[in-house]
């Protein structure tokens, strides 16, 4: 019985001493899993990570180019806008100048018209004066003759009668002129 006990105790293995089969079945898993990670899993993982990085970098590049494009478009638009503004200012300036010119022209032509009308009026007045002068000259001649004949017909010595005659003549002339004027 004691011998059996000793045998049993001896058969209890020391957990710190590896059995051969234990080493074998530790090496096999280790080598297999090491090969799996080394040759298969990690290269695949690396490839995916690289692809992902490339994709992200590509995305960033694309975004940057889009940004640049947008910037260029904005600049172009701004340039166009400035150009348009300048053109509008130019047109406005031109219109203003043209307006001023038209105004000046109108003023000038109005003045000329006024001058022309004034000149016409003066000419007419002058003509009428000439006509009056001519008609007067003729009338005065005949009147002088009338007066002279009248004076001669009367006694010229009598001063009083002569002056009366002259007065009468003048009054007659006046009324005559008045009637002529009224008739006119």
């Amino acid at each position, binding site marked *: *019985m004691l011998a*059996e*006990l000793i045998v*049993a105790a001896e*058969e*209890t*293995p020391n*957990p*710190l*001493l*590896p*059995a*051969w*089969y*234990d*080493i*074998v*079945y*530790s*090496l*096999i*898993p*280790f080598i*297999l*899993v*090491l090969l*799996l*990670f*080394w040759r*298969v*899993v*990690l290269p*695949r*993982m690396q*490839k*995916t990570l690289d*692809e*992902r990085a490339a*994709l992200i970098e590509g995305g960033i590049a694309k975004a940057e180019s889009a940004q640049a494009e947008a910037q260029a478009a904005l600049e172009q638009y701004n340039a166009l806008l400035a150009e348009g503004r300048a053109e509008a200012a130019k047109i406005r300036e031109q219109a203003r100048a043209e307006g001023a010119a038209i105004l000046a022209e109108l003023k000038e032509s109005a003045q000329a018209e006024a001058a022309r009308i004034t000149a016409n009026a003066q000419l007419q007045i002058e003509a009428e004066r000439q006509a009056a002068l001519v008609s007067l000259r003729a009338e005065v001649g005949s009147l002088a003759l009338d007066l002279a004949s009248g004076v001669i017909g009367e006694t010229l010595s009598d001063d009083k009668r002569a002056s009366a005659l002259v007065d009468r003549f003048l009054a007659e002339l006046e009324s005559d002129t008045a009637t002529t004027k009224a008739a006119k």
Partner: protein
Amino acid sequence: MLETPLSAAALIPILALATAPATETPEFKGPSIMDFFPPAILFEGTPFELNRIMLLRLVIVALIFILFWLGTRKMQLVPGRFQGTIEMGLEFVRKGIVEDLLGQKDGKRFLPLITTIFFLVLFMNLTGIVPGINISANSVIGMPLVLAIAAYIAFIWAGLRKHPWTFIRNALFPPGVPPFLYIIVTPIEFVSMFVLRPVTLTLRLLMNMIVGHLLLVLFFSATAFFMVELGGWWIAASAVTLAFGTAFTFFEILVSVLQAYVFALLTTVYIQLALADEH
């Protein structure tokens, strides 16, 4: 839940006869170290002896292959849910551990190793809380040991390849120490670097997993024992052990993830120290 090997099964009645008086007292079967050495299924006695835990390791490898193969088979630039999860895991190791400490250039060289370590440890740890499996594939020393040796070879190779003399000098004669102290410092540094590093890597993981398993088994077998074997008022005690067992199950998830992170992180740190020009 408990796989009692034949030898242990033979042992228990003997012990019961030797210690307990022959009464009807039910026997409590707690967790045993034999949990980690289940009976062979295939090739018994050869170096390819396959038992439950070894088979579990192969299943985990298959699972890792399926997950990562499918997850990276047709990778989309805009990932779906599954691919996104796989990517998140891989990126966590790459960015959170490797490139953070080693930078892009050196990081690329050691990324496969660190990724392997992280996911192997993680998946093999997590089986400790999967119902029906209930044992971590890292709770037998082989796996932690192989991974620690891989880390050991990696950081020594990294240092020797980059600058053999600087590496040795930094390792054994750290700059900034008065020369006469090298009598003390150099042996300590030697042991710390070339002996303790792989040993602590192995044991930290192994012991976390062993203790995690023992704790869970203790709580749950105690629950079953109180409820089924004793009954009556003991059922109240079973509620307590059940609650603890549940809480520790969640705690084990945390430990599993944390140990995977720590193992990968320490390996990276050792490589980083080996590559450093000055300490």
